[in-house]
């Protein structure tokens, strides 16, 4: 997996630039953005690990066969509806990025903020690349749901602990989780993707399942982010 450019518009949206994000990147801010982008592209080392599991619906969620894990909640249940298998995925930009952002904090918070947002955009890019590669590896004949992460809707955040363990993420890509469920390295994502033999109705990624729905700035203005 290779990331060759960073999605600046996305990063600036994270910083609250609104819709015409790219027009606002100029002057000093443009210089900082370019500096941070170059440094990040040199530093980030995207890695991912995944495993495919057979699943079966259960009374209180979805059972992951041959493991002790049950995915709990009605949201993950409906996400995986009609799927016979699921992919557990963890993606990370690796530890160097965290250190780079910390170093920027000593130079100025504007750099740290820009770098942090660019890194978040890069994480999203890495996830998309990982998804493409996984879909190709699992097989073209299958259908896939979008990425559903612990913490979305009523899907418990602490599912991350078991999920990381099952795919051996600490050992394979160096991702761990703290007691407060923060992934380390910070720019990391865990997710569940459903795999089905039959076509999956295109469920929209709506606000209902987002854990930011109560405090989201976009929603307050009757807009949404995707």
């Amino acid at each position, binding site marked *: 997996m290779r990331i060759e450019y960073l999605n600046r518009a996305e990063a600036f949206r994270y910083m609250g630039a609104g819709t015409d994000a790219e027009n606002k990147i100029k002057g000093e801010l443009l210089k900082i953005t370019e500096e941070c982008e170059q440094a990040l592209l040199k530093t980030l080392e995207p890695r991912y690990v995944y495993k495919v599991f057979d699943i079966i619906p259960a009374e209180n969620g979805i059972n992951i066969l041959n493991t002790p894990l049950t995915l709990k909640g009605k949201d993950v249940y409906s996400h995986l509806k009609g799927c016979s298998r699921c992919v557990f995925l963890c993606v990370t930009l690796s*530890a160097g990025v965290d250190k780079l952002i910390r170093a920027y904090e000593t130079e*100025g*918070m504007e750099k740290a903020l820009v770098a942090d947002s660019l890194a978040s955009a890069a994480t999203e890019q890495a996830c998309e690349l990982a998804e493409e590669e996984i879909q190709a590896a699992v097989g073209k004949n299958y259908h896939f749901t979008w990425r559903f992460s612990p913490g979305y809707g009523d899907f418990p955040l602490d599912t991350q602990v078991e999920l990381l363990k099952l795919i051996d993420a600490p050992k394979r890509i160096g991702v761990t989780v703290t007691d407060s469920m923060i992934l380390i390295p910070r720019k990391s994502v865990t997710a569940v993707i459903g795999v089905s033999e039959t076509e999956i109705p295109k469920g929209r990624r709506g606000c209902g399942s987002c854990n930011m729905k109560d405090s989201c700035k976009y929603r307050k203005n009757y807009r949404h982010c995707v």
Partner: protein
Amino acid sequence: MDFKTLLNEKEFVILDGAMGTVLQARGLKTGETPEILNIENPELLTDIHSEYIKAGADIIYANTFGANRYKLEKSGRSVEEIIKAGIKNAKKACDGTNVLTALDIGPIGQLLEPSGTLSFEEAYDIYKEQVLAGSEADLIVFETMTDLYELKAALLAAKENSDKPVICTMTFEENKRTFTGCSVSAMALTLEGLGADAIGINCSLGPKELYPVVEELCRMTKLPVAVKPNAGLPDPVTNAYNITEEEFALLTEKLVPLGVKLFGGCCGTKPSFISAVKNALKGKNFVKTAPLIPSACCTPSKTVVIDRPRIIGERINPTGKKRFKEALLAGDTDYILGQAVEQVKGGADILDVNVGTPGIDEKEMMKRVVKAIQSVSDVPLQLDSTDPNVLEAALRVYNGKPVVNSVNGEEKSLKSVLPLVKKYGAAVVGLCLDENGIPKTAEGRFKIAEKILNRALELGIRREDVYIDCLTLTVSAEQEAAMVTLEALERVKNELGLRTVLGVSNISFGLPDRVKISSNFLTMALTKGLDLPIINPNTESMTAAVAAFNVLKGYDENSMEYIAKYGGEGANSRVPVGETAPKSEISLSYALENGLRSEGKRITAELLKTTDPMAVINDILIPTLDKTGSEFEKGKIFLPQLILTAGAAQSCFEAIKEHYARTGEKTVSKGKIILATVKGDIHDIGKNIVKVLLENYGYEVLDLGKDVPCEKVLECAVKENIRLVGLSALMTTTLASMEETIRLLRENKVNCKIMVGGAVLTPEYAEKIGADFYAKDAKESCDIAKKVFEGIGNV
């Protein structure tokens, strides 16, 4: 049989193969804790160990890899019972053989500071518990480590709580780095220094991919090298490993000429792999290599080999610097970090760190500063103190192999400092002085250098790790002394073969235009063999003297580094951001609005020559900040632009602070505010942005950092008589700590207002948990502070 005898008597030492792979083949479900089986199915474990012994293993690893406090938390079993049972099962299999049982210990599973939240000291405690529980084992193995800092905590715990031999193996990727960025050389330098008995590599790759990693390791260590590769690489979909026993053995055999002594297998291997390896090694001879380990110091991601002049940055030192002393007294590590980053940008290869000043706890400050610098920079440090207790504290928490500054020829110094250097595996600067002061002659200084060297060698410190400082005296006071220093330096270098170090700037004290004298003396010293000039790397002519010397001496091949630094494109990139606007014509408010930091600072310093600081603050800085603040509220500019201005203002305030430090005036504070990211949360960018803005408005921010225990907020609020506390949380999981902190403050009747902020908060939730204010962004935090302290405005 013990480990040492085993190494001496056997041509090769055979280790066992994977435990997890075999357990899974026998029905262990993915995600289950394998160590529980030590108690629930001891026969199964003894059986597997026996198979490995039958296959030819000389050392077997007990099933204790994940048996730590943290991983066993929910198992209902204690570390002690799991480890004792694990070792008992292994010992049972060893009965009647010469096979040794290793206490096997893997990573804790939580990342250490600064990336994670686990402190070095907590990690040490976790490992200590395992080491003590494993007292029945014959040796200790730490394996699959990716974080050198964690491994240092582990190795110290082993060495300080047992007398067993220790094997340390780490896990590398194909780029010859671990996940946390640790290099092979840093691993070797650090672990050999800390007293590991064998080091090596396990897991992640197969024997073929590990070849270049092993090759580098064998070049960097004199210790026995252990290798436990995986059975090739796993298939991403099926997770099956891709090489057979025969291929594994064949590829393993290829590692013999590199000098590997101990062989085994990791993930995907089973007893048949070990017997294949055993067979393949039959009749082969161990290849004893004699690598030359260079003089070097390191952090996990950066090794500095002293094979040519390297610059030691001298700026982190309060001697003669009022602003620095003030920062230390105020506990302002940001200022010190700024100095660190600036010196590295200037070209420092190593940073000297000295925080000794009256009125502070030097030991605590040293620990804090070392950890803080290492969290943002990968340049090795030279730990500088006259107090051995401070040195030991710093040596303990340092990540990598540092330099100690310093020991001298006095008996007291030799006795207290050198054992520390040995224990923690550092390099050391030896000063050519003793009870009688600094010898006047080169011969006298040479004799002291020789004495220091001999004492170091007696303790087992390597010759390559002793750097001698022949001491620079002030040439305006003693003119002949300059040549004495250089003569002594030359002799130490040539006759003792040691690396040399010299604080250069002292030479020109008392003379006009000092840098002319200093840089010429520096060049003279370099030609006599100076390896480590201690200078201010941001003094251009000093750094340039080193760069030029490296070209002329042929160290800088094809002048590449010189050209990169002083040539066309590189020269442009050296101009800091913000220096491009025309110098003289811009106003301070223009500099602020456009985020021009260095311009802002320069203009402020100019203004202060003629204008009262308070006038600069009230007439220019605050109105400009207010203006951008209101533009931000109206949505005309967005967050990074607001912070750009705030950051530029910060540099203006730094100019004012420097002015105050010079004139001895006191900074006027509008009031003290506590800021903290609550317990469990480590997202602190938002909090730090709030800090910059509040400081701009003249508030004194007591920044308690991230992951702050509730009690610490309470304690500080009471002690400092605080009127406003700001708490930040970014996770739904950490809102509980926020609520708890508020509850604690209220329960103890602390008379303060509390403002809260963070992405997952809502005004309703803020009210529910008892906060006085909800701050939707950094700008609003300032409005709240104004309201609380000055009764101005509505929030």
